[in-house]
Structure formats: C-alpha cells, structure tokens
C-alpha cells in the first residue's frame, strides 16, 4: 500500500477501513538464504537493502521481542556526520546522504529533520580540534562551519554566555545534521523489507548457532531450528551474549546510557546542541519534549536502567549551559544497553565462522548510522566484500593496531 496525502484524506473520509497491516506476521520457514538476527534498526535496514538494493530473496529477520525494540526504540534521535578520522567520516557521511531522501525512498515519513547540530567549544585547544575535524568533514564531502562566539550567540541567544564556568568560545556547526523520528525509521525499514518479501519474525529468539566444520548452517531459535546460508548478527546490546554462542569473545563491553525527555513545551531550541565541557546534549522533539542526555553511567550493565548521579550530572550540565530550561520538568528517564567497543568505533565484518557476519560495537552512536550500517552490512553479506566506506571496521584491527579512536582514550570503553 502506497502512503500519500491523498490516501490519508480518502481513508479519513471512509472511516479508515482501508489501512492494511504495516507488515505481515509470517511463520518462520524451514530455511532462508539470509538470516538477520536482530530486528532493531540495523537489522531491519540490512534486510531492506539486501532485498531492495542487492536483489536478494529468501531473507528473514529474527527478533526476540517486538520490531524496533532495540536501541532504535530508545535513543536521542540525532543524525550527524561530524567525525574526525578517515575510518569513520566517509561512512557517516554516506549514512547522512542515505538519510537525505530516505523517506521518499521507502515511502514512510520518518521525520528526518535537518535542523543542524552545534558542538560548542570552550578552549583554544578545543577550537583547534574542531578545526581539524571540520576540515576532515569537508574533505570527505560533508558540510561543516566553524562559528565564533557571536555567531553562536546569534543562533542560540539563550545559552549562558555571561556567567559560565566554561565560557563559550565558538562552535562547530553541521547544518545537514539533525534528528529523525527513531521509531519511524524502524517502521519504515520494516515495512519496506516486508513489502519486498522479507519475513519479519517477532518473538523469535536465537538460542544457538549450528556450525558444521567451521561453517554456519543455521540457527536454533525459540521457534525451532531455521537453516540459513548466511547469518548476519546485528543485536546491539546483546552482541557479546549472542556471539558467545558461536564461541567468540568480543572487544566490547555492555554499558548503560541514560536518556531523558522533558514534558512537552512550545518551540524552545532550534537544532541539536552539544556541551562537551558539561557532558550534555539536547534537541527538541516535534512533540515539544526536550530530548537530552550526557555520559554513560560508566559500569558494565545489562539492566536497561541507570542511576541518580548521572541524572543529576546531566541536569547540572543542562542548567549550566541553558539556565532558562530550569522550570521545565523532566518527564522520563530511560536506559539502553550500549555495545561499547574498545576504540569507540563499530565492527562490520566477517567472523572466523564462515557464513557468520557481525555488525556490532556502535557505542551510543548507532542510530545515525542506521542507513549506512544496514547498507554496508547488506553489501558484505551479499558480495562478501566490505562496503568502500566501511573497510576500516574490521575485527582484527585491535590485534593489528589499526584502531579508530575518535576520542583518544584507548581501550577503556566507558570513556568513549
């Protein structure tokens, strides 16, 4: 069913009787050519591109819970491509280009909104680092602007310019960055994949891999054994647990990241603003809630909830940066499990098990990567070769010394 304004009007006038399910609820088939484990954003996007771009068929997505129940269902919705390192920036810029036009492509309004992201800087050294980064972005074909203090003030006059512990000296602006409606992205990909024959199977948890002679032959699930030609795992938050079933240890720790939303407010702030010195970032949703966050809690956790000190810390940062939000109220705090990798960058690679592929380690930045991650993973699954923008995301980069460490903090996941 094609969505359009006309269709909405027609259905409105006829009692909405014509709307069809967004996707089917198929029974699992005995065998597929491609099984994607994980019905989150990356898994759904992978299935979508496998079917659409690479023309593959006999594809299933296995999701242990409901579609989009992974981190795509609980994040702060930011999309951007403001990276420094050559292993990252071209990939995220590829993702940005996929975001632009995504909705028209899959005929679903995911509310991709290029309202801009502004990273504030507070020291000369930070401005130097931003200049290096902004230039790296431009060299990779992205957009970037370096703003001085007065330009920042013109954009965001409500920031604390006059009484700040860390005075604002300027900022790095990416205008094409912004936000997207996270659930809408998952649904758009799911619907697009379903329309192309992908079986989206909910409430189907993978409980084991069947490996014969070093080659994957299928997966055990709570709904029985399913044979597969190739298996791609995209289960952010559960990567270590799932891959342990294939006998692998990963360069990943699972951490909890809390995110926050305020009660609804009339338009208050324009785009996304980040305050590195205060560990705070914020945007405003179309519904009016201020959506914000800060650092991860900092300890290994699978509990999907965090603790009070980080809540206080994030609020302190917010109040220090924009004291006019004080009378707004926090509505909801939630916690998600992050695959924090050892260098802060992701992994899209084959594994030592033939036919078993891994997409993991997105830290807390997986949402913006969703289109490119799905595309690159589909590319790898379909062709056996890494996509040109994802060639650095190898599993062996740690042992060989080719880490992609944007923050320069080393093998300590809670600092990335």
């Amino acid at each position: 069913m094609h969505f359009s304004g006309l269709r909405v009007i027609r259905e409105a006038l006829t009692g909405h009787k014509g709307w069809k399910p967004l996707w089917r609820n198929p029974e699992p088939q005995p065998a597929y050519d491609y099984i994607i484990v994980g019905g989150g954003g990356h898994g759904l996007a992978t299935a979508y591109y496998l079917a659409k771009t690479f023309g593959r068929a006999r594809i299933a997505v296995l999701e242990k819970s409901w579609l989009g129940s992974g981190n795509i269902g609980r994040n702060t919705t930011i999309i951007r491509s403001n990276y420094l390192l050559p292993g990252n920036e071209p990939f995220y810029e590829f993702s940005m280009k996929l975001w632009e036009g995504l909705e028209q492509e899959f005929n679903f309004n995911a509310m991709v909104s290029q309202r801009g992201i502004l990273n504030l800087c507070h020291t000369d050294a930070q401005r130097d680092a931003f200049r290096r980064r902004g230039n790296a972005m431009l060299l990779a074909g992205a957009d970037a602007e370096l703003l001085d203090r007065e330009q920042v003030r013109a954009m965001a006059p409500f920031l604390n310019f006059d009484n700040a512990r860390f005075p604002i000296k300027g900022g790095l602006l990416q205008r094409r960055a912004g936000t997207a409606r996270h659930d809408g992205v998952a649904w758009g990909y799911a619907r697009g994949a379903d329309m192309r024959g992908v079986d989206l199977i909910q409430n189907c948890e993978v409980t084991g891999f069947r490996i014969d002679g070093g080659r994957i032959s299928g997966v055990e699930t709570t709904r029985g054994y399913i044979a597969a030609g190739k298996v791609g795992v995209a289960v952010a938050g559960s990567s270590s647990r799932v891959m342990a079933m294939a006998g692998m240890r990963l360069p990943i720790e699972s951490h909890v990241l809390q995110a926050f939303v305020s009660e609804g407010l009339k338009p208050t702030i324009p785009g996304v603003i980040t305050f590195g010195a205060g560990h705070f970032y914020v945007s405003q949703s179309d519904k009016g809630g201020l959506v914000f966050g800060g650092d991860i809690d900092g300890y290994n956790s699978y509990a999907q909830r965090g603790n009070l000190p980080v809540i206080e810390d994030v609020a302190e940062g917010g109040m220090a940066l924009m004291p006019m939000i004080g009378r707004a109220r926090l509505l909801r705090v939630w916690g998600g499990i992050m695959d924090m990798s050892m260098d802060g960058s992701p992994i899209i690679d084959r594994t030592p098990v033939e036919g078993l592929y891994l997409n993991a380690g997105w830290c807390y930045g997986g949402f913006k990567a969703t289109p490119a991650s799905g595309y690159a993973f589909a590319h790898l699954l379909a062709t056996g070769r890494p996509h040109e923008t994802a060639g650095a995301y190898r599993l062996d980069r740690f042992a060989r010394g080719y880490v992609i460490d944007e923050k320069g903090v080393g093998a300590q996941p809670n600092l990335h």
Partner: protein
Amino acid sequence: MLIPHPLLGPRDAQEFTYLGDAALLNRPDGMAEGAEAAFAEYVYLRDNPAGVHRELWFHEQGDRSWLVVTRDTTTHEILGAELARDVKLKGGAA
C-alpha cells in the same frame, strides 16, 4: 549504587571510578614469547557477561584503594568486594 568497601562499609558509588573487568589484574609478561598476542587479548577482549561480573573500582574520592567488586550486571546486585591488592597477591582474578 553503594559499593560495600571491605574496610569502610557501604559507600556511594559516586566516590569511585570504574575501570572494568578484573581480568585486568592478570597482565601478561611483556618479555615472554608471544607477548603481543597475549596483550591483544588482555587489552581488548572481554567476557562481558550478563550476570556475575568481577570488576575493578577505584575509591578515588575515598581511601584510594582499588577494589575487586563482584556484581550482577543484570540486576546490579553486589555480591562482594575485596581489596584488589589482596586478590592479586592471592594469585589474580582468575
């Protein structure tokens, strides 16, 4: 969170800095054969269990002790805490 310090009793986790897997106590011998592979595993690979986890916390705003805390990563329940020094002298985190 409260960390049950073996000498000081329960203390606010905010006084502590977290490092991670207590396997970091078991630093390989850098002068041994095959040290590079051993270090690659030591530095980068983690069990990352959903369940009982032995991990290192530093009482930075306290007595400056490193602790090995045993904690369930699914519930955050803490099952015990020891001075890391004692654990190491007893033979490491294994």
